[in-house]
């Protein structure tokens, strides 16, 4: 595709556009720069929310008040949830790696609507700013939890309004990104790349984008109803005016359950990219992964009721939601089998991204199977609103999406920055993080089964032991995060430069463009006639530079 005589074009990092300095970034419509803008925003807010988390775990080190009182604890878990869910994991992988790599992986020069893409980031930032004002104005930081359950969310004197409205605004950003990706995938695939020749990360982004388009408006209108409830007293969720708070829960989860798949589907896509590359083996059951992706996106709409088993529903509704919940586990399990089968008899290359991918499999299975414990009607009644639930969704959302995010950044880092990170520190960070993660969340399963409720700043003395382990785990995990971040930030600024196009021996298109990519990715749009992940020609000899 490229010959050596071609003049080297500046990379997207160096390219001098209409604006200089920071304006060249925040006004750039280049999908790669926008992806990095999201990345930096998320890194910052992740650090904030992680600090909130560590403070909460420190509070739970011993029964009674240690470092904060109940009201502070309530506002901490609320802000922790809002940041982690609405600012980080929901936009997460699509906004950062989808923006950066979707066009490159399907052989396009940019997304379908580059200006809309920049607008999405701006809307996202405005939403964040609105949410932040809730912390410093009015009746104090919100204390409702990120779910804003009625009727408390319109009765509490704390400043819920900006938080809800900010989340509403961020929904727009999500919708616009979704529309952009669906149109991009439909219209801009390289010639010859039929649907079943598309790599799996774009496939999962496709499923995710549809959920973003079809589910986000539901939360949008629901949050707007909360705003109207607080400001005008329209009474839809207020029993004193004839409204029904349970209806709020339905509307909320009609979005928020599919949103879980917004979080996890792209993570599955990343894992599907990493595993074949480091196993040097064609992905096992490409079509099964594609189909299960779309099946998850579809069935995921019909399981929201499993969040409400104890809220009051008819027996028939309970059975149906429970049954559908078990159904949606099947496509996820199919994927796990595919990944394991891909590794089977492969030539495993133990690099950092592969460590993250394999540990993803482990935590994802624990998270998924405990999800079934919660999806079963009888056990749900016992475990509802306990620490078991907290442990479960941290295994899925942090363990699933978080591990995939870390895997993705270690996988694509050389391509994104044209520099290499220090593998020793990266592996060490992973090890410490993994150990910390397990000792932080595994005791929570036990605590939940013993009956420790979630969202309390205090607990009974008999829960003390496991809580100590859990809090220590949190400190270990944060040390791992510090090592990983320090290594990545240092390497992005001053790591050894590399212009190696394909350091890992990947087969997808992003490994054929320059490192780092040029402004338009391709001089000439490539033609794609082969399926991705074809390793039949692998000879066992790796790239000597690697």
């Amino acid at each position, binding site marked *: 595709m490229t010959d050596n005589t071609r003049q080297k074009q500046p990379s997207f990092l160096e390219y001098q556009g209409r604006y200089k300095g920071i304006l060249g970034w925040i006004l750039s419509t280049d999908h790669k720069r926008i992806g990095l803008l999201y990345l930096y925003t998320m890194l910052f807010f992740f650090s904030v929310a992680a600090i909130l988390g560590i403070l909460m775990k420190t509070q739970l080190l011993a029964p009674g008040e240690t470092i904060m009182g109940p009201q502070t604890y309530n506002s901490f878990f609320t802000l922790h949830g809002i940041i982690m869910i609405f600012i980080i994991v929901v936009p997460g992988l699509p906004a950062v790696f989808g923006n950066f790599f979707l066009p490159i992986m399907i052989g396009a020069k940019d997304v379908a609507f580059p200006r809309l893409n920049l607008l999405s980031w701006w809307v996202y930032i405005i939403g964040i700013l609105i949410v932040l004002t809730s912390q410093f104005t009015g009746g104090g930081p919100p204390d409702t939890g990120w779910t804003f359950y009625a009727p408390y969310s319109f009765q509490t004197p704390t400043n819920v309004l900006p938080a809800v409205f900010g989340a509403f605004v961020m929904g727009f950003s999500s919708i616009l990104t979704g529309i952009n990706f669906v149109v991009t995938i439909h219209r801009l695939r390289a010639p010859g790349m039929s649907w079943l020749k598309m790599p799996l990360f774009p496939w999962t982004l496709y499923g995710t984008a549809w959920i973003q388009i079809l589910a986000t408006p539901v939360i949008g209108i629901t949050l707007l109803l909360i705003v*109207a409830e607080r400001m005008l007293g329209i009474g839809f969720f207020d029993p004193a005016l004839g409204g029904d708070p349970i209806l709020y829960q339905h509307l909320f989860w009609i979005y928020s359950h599919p949103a879980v798949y917004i979080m996890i589907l792209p993570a599955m896509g990343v894992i599907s990219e990493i595993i074949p590359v480091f196993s040097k083996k064609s992905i096992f059951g490409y079509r099964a992964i594609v189909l299960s992706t779309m099946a998850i996106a579809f069935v995921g709409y019909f399981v929201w009721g499993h969040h409400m088993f104890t809220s009051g529903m008819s027996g028939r509704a309970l059975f149906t939601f429970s049954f559908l919940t078990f159904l949606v586990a099947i496509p996820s399990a199919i994927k796990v089998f595919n990944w394991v089968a891909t590794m089977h008899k492969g030539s495993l290359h133990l690099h950092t991204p592969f460590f993250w991918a394999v540990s993803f499999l482990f935590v994802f299975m624990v998270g998924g199977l405990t999800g079934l414990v919660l999806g079963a009607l009888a056990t749900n009644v016992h475990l509802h609103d306990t620490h078991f639930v907290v442990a479960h969704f941290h295994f899925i959302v942090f363990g699933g999406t978080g591990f995939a995010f870390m895997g993705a950044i270690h996988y694509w880092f050389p391509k994104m920055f044209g520099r290499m990170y220090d593998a020793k520190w990266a592996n060490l960070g992973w090890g410490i993080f993994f150990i910390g993660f397990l000792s932080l969340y595994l005791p929570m399963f036990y605590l939940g089964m013993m009956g420790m409720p979630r969202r309390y700043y205090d607990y009974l003395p008999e829960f003390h032991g496991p809580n100590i382990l859990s809090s220590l785990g949190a400190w270990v995990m944060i040390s791992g995060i510090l090592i990983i971040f320090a290594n990545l930030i240092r390497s992005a600024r001053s790591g050894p430069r590399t212009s190696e196009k394909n350091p890992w021996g990947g087969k997808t298109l992003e490994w054929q463009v320059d490192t780092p990519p040029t402004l338009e990715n391709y001089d000439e749009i490539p033609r794609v006639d082969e399926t991705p992940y074809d390793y039949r020609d692998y000879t066992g000899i790796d790239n000597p530079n690697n």
Partner: protein
Amino acid sequence: MTIHRDDLGDKFGMWLFIFTELLLFGMLFVVYAVYRSMHPEAFRIAAEELDVALGTINTVLLLISSLTVAMSITAIQKGNKQRALQLLGVTLLIAIIFLVNKYFEWGAKFEYGFYPGSEVLQELGFGTILFFGLYFFMTGIHALHILIGIGLFIYVIVQMKNDKIHQTDYVWLENTGLYWHLVDLIWIFLFPLFYLIH
């Protein structure tokens, strides 16, 4: 750098946006259905307070405006800029008249004390409170869409005057038209649900 242009892609994007709008209103229709089934009698009585004549006029107006915007697309396709501008002007005018009617309609409701949080409603019971809550919220969100539509029409008219929208590049107008049909369509459902069914 070549300018990338893909009219079909642009319209595809607009259709996806329309899906999101349908789901947004769809959830409100769900809320309506739930509360109507809980308070059928109160909803029937409360509906009689609405001005069917004014509602009908607004419905007819919106239908006509959907026609005029579609005709303006045909006009620009045929290269008749003047006619297209006239038809867009009519559409814009109708959109404004719709809001003026809405203002009088809402004003009358406020005069009689039929608004969320009023004392009159408190005495009339849950069903009536919910009916007027839904009425104001749903027609309010719809009116917001009309306002956005007015903004879009003004933008399209200015762009057409400056020949940025012309016979071979009119996807902005087409997408505005699609949006306007959506606003019309939502009203086609709102009108019978609030004004007509007993």
